[in-house]
């Protein structure tokens, strides 16, 4: 509470909070949810999963060609081997950027996103402009993110579904030969794994 006048007022629930409470009440009375499990889910997605997981996958792929091959063949299993598994039964597919092809991920349907490796999506990923423009004008979208690609680089747009989610493996930056996986992972931003960014150059 930041408002000093609040102290002598009654409690108020805003309408959305009251509505969610009503749903929780109904669902737990019917035995369909366990409030403790709901709290655990919130904690997981607020605090535990995030792009650091995906950065770990990319750094391993950059460091270990066998792992990279596995990731290309069966991303779901390769990613699970690092302890990151999806809870929606979705399959993962890793798409690798090359000097000829840049990959960009969108969900035109709603907001499907590889939660287990990137956490929950940023607001722009869920917005109508991104969802439609990433398909129609990917080059323009990339420029808005400050990514300018040569004209001869193809852009492949991957439309996520409830069953299949994509992870972009950005190109390894130059000058990173001696770096270990931790140092490499620090160069891998969330956006670089959606395709709206590139991996950063080492300092």
């Amino acid at each position, binding site marked *: 509470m930041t408002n000093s006048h*609040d102290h002598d007022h009654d409690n108020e629930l805003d309408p959305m909070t009251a*509505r969610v409470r009503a749903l929780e009440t109904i669902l737990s009375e019917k035995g369909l949810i366990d409030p403790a499990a709901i709290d655990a889910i*919130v904690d997981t*997605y607020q605090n535990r999963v995030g792009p650091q997981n995906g950065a770990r996958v990319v750094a391993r792929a950059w460091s270990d060609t066998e792992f990279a091959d596995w990731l290309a063949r069966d991303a779901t299993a390769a990613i699970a081997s690092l302890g990151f598994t999806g809870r929606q039964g979705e399959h993962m597919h890793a798409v690798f950027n090359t000097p000829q092809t840049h990959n960009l991920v969108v969900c035109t349907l709603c907001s499907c996103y590889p939660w287990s490796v990137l956490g929950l999506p940023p607001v722009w990923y869920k917005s109508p402009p991104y969802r439609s423009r990433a398909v129609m004008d990917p080059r323009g979208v990339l420029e808005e993110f400050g990514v300018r690609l040569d004209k001869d680089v193809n852009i492949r747009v991957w439309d996520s579904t409830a069953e299949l989610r994509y992870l972009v493996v950005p190109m390894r930056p130059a000058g990173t030969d001696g770096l270990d996986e931790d140092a490499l992972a620090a160069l891998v931003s969330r956006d670089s794994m959606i395709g709206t960014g590139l991996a950063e150059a080492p300092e």
Partner: protein
Amino acid sequence: MSGPDRGADRPLPPEIADPSPFAEPWQAQAFALVVGLHERGLFEWGEWAQALSAELKRPGVADDGSDYYACWLRALETLIGEKQIAEGADIDALAESWSRAAHATPHGKPILLENDPLTS
């Protein structure tokens, strides 16, 4: 591939510096209810994606994504209605009861549903 028919000419919303994926606590709760119900087997994830997509494609949805979790909540209510778990009217009535309970609860005390003066 059929993209959504809205938002085609409009700018992307700005990046928000706050790293929390939820702007308000109710959004996190609404999110977790869906994940929990799916884990419980109430629906397939594809079914959920269709329900959410239907809400996100309604006219008037905000370009900046700010009403995303309001859409999320409506999609959840739709699925709950289809599964005959609760009707919209039941949810309305109970939400009003929660609001009355909050209003009747002194500051510093936990808000409990039984504090609703019309039901106790």
